């Protein structure tokens, strides 16, 4: 069924806005398990956006990418993270590098920065997904910022995964999905990265009996 392109682009913008919202929620969240759930929600929205773009533009290989994202980022990774959280029985992000209100303010500034920087290249993009490239870049920056702001290993991984989501959104928005080999490679790498991070947090837990990365300052200058 054909929906007029105008409504389509509005729908895509709605989904991207929702993604941005979940980003802000993650930054504002103290409890780790809530963070992981929010990340799962964000991945779900991502899948929705990808499916929408695939549907509107008729590029069927985006469906495969959306399916893979759904499988990995909505189901497998949250479960892995939840298991890691239980094993470490660490519930809340007690000490933060940047407290929540300041963090939100900075995220706002990052969004403005993202729009300012991608401003000249937007007219090049496809009509349908023009604005979501800027949002994607904003999500990448926010993900990066969460990694800096939070101290727990798990929340750093969540920040890293939010960055990956931003990149995937960028890829779908800017180029309707990367070539298949690259797409597969990216997924494979993200999965391996998370698995390795999980193993690391376990070993760090045994070695330092706390998953708080701020203790890791033995190696200096």
């Amino acid at each position, binding site marked *: 069924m054909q929906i007029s392109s105008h409504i389509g682009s509005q729908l895509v913008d709605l989904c991207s806005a929702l993604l941005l919202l979940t980003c802000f929620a993650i930054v504002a969240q103290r409890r780790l398990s809530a963070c992981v759930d929010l990340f799962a929600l964000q991945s779900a929205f991502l899948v929705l956006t990808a499916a929408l773009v695939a549907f509107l533009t008729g590029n069927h290989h985006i469906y495969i990418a959306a399916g893979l994202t759904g499988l990995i980022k909505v189901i497998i990774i949250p479960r892995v993270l939840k298991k890691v959280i239980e094993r470490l029985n660490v519930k809340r992000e007690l000490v933060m590098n940047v407290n929540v209100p300041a963090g939100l303010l900075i995220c706002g500034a990052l969004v403005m920065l993202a729009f300012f920087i991608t401003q000249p290249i937007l007219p090049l993009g496809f009509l349908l997904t023009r604005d979501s490239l800027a949002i994607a870049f904003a999500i990448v920056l926010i993900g990066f910022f969460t990694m*800096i702001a939070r101290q727990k290993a798990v929340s750093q991984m969540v920040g890293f995964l939010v960055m990956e989501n931003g990149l995937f959104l960028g890829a779908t928005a800017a180029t309707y999905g990367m070539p298949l080999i690259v797409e597969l490679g990216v997924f494979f790498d993200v999965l391996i990265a998370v698995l390795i991070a999980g193993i690391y947090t376990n070993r760090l837990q045994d070695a330092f009996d706390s998953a708080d990365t701020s203790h890791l300052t033995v190696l*200096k*200058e």
Partner: protein
Amino acid sequence: MPEGIRTLVFLMALIGFGTKAGIVPLHVWLPYAHPSAPSHISALMSGVMIKTAIYALVRVYFDFLGGQFPWWWGFIVLVIGAVSALLGVMYALMEHDLKSLLAYHSVENIGIILLGIGAGMIFQTYGLTEFAALGLLAGLYHTINHAMFKALLFLGAGSLLYATHTRNMEEYGGLLRRMPWTGAFFLIGAVSISALPPTNGFVSEWLVFQSLFLSFHLPAVLLKFMLPLAAAMLALTSVLALTCFAKAFGVSFLALPRSSHARQAEEVPITMRIAMGLLAVVCVLLGLAPMVVVPMLDRVVAPFAGLSIEGKMLALDGWALAPVNVEFSSLSTPVLALLLVALSMLGLGLVAAFGGLVKQRYYKTWGCGINLTPRMEYTATGFVQPIKRIFGAIYQPTVKLETELLEESLYFAKRRHFEFHIEPVFQKYFYDPVVACFIGMAERLRVIQRGSLHLYLAYIFVTLIVLLLFAV
């Protein structure tokens, strides 16, 4: 090349090759490096290695920069030469380690060479090419002479080290009787480095004196006055060098041996003596036969100065050496040598004529009634103590004397410990601050690697933002 770059090339070459040559502010490595090498190596280092820097300096200034340069270049080289010569010999006086004494003398002789080259450069600036060639030739002649007598002295020091296993002059004494050959060759080296008449050091220093005295041909009044002042400093340097080597030779070779090592010292094997002998002969020949050396050097200097001055240098068919015009002054070392020999024969003749060669009697030296022990002799430190007082401003000596008195009396000491140091001025006020500043910078920089992962992530984040904002 634009003017600014030429000056930069001049200054950088001066600093770079100056460090290699060991001019004063940059000489600190020399007294550490030369003595620690085995003696024949330090002979090579002092004799040849620092001359490569002189070669490079002349090549850069007279060849690459084409020989036209402002007057103040030559003036700087002259001033550095004078200062190096004076400070070199002053620090040498204070040494009681024979090989670092010789190392400091290398600094002094490099100063003398630079005096010659500096005078040459000044004359070149004002177009007096004849005198420029003379200055350069004097500098190069002294380079050869210094190579010869410094190598001889280092080999001599090496033989002493070989025989007595120590470099400290205070532990030598009376070695001339036990090591006559080494003593004789060391004496020839000492005489030639103190630039005494018949030897080669005198000829080249005389030539440097003449090139400095020819300054009244220069138009600029300042230079007309400064060059003779440099000549006065050169005179002071050479007489201090004379004192230094009187001390070095006297304290090491004469009077009674002051340590068991010195008592059991044996003459070095024949091969070492041959080496020293050869060098001694060359030193004497270089002194007596400037008419052979000057033409060779003239061929070196001619391309730089643009004309050959050999004709003007050798008067009386080679017998006399004249600084470009005979009428100004001339020197003939062969005649002087002949004169000295003849007159000492005359002395013998007078002795024979008036009193006949009465057999001399041997008896112990007068020691105010008590018989003389080696401890009563003048040591190297004692010998130069007056000079240390006179030039105290330069040395800033610090003296430490601890006396451990006997329990029962206030006056009789069980043990006295005397220690004197001269201020390592350059080390303290020039090199240590520079090193401290670099280490300080590094210490401050150390703070960026504090170990926290979040800080490192923040670095990447900020770099990305900055580049995106400013470089796009």
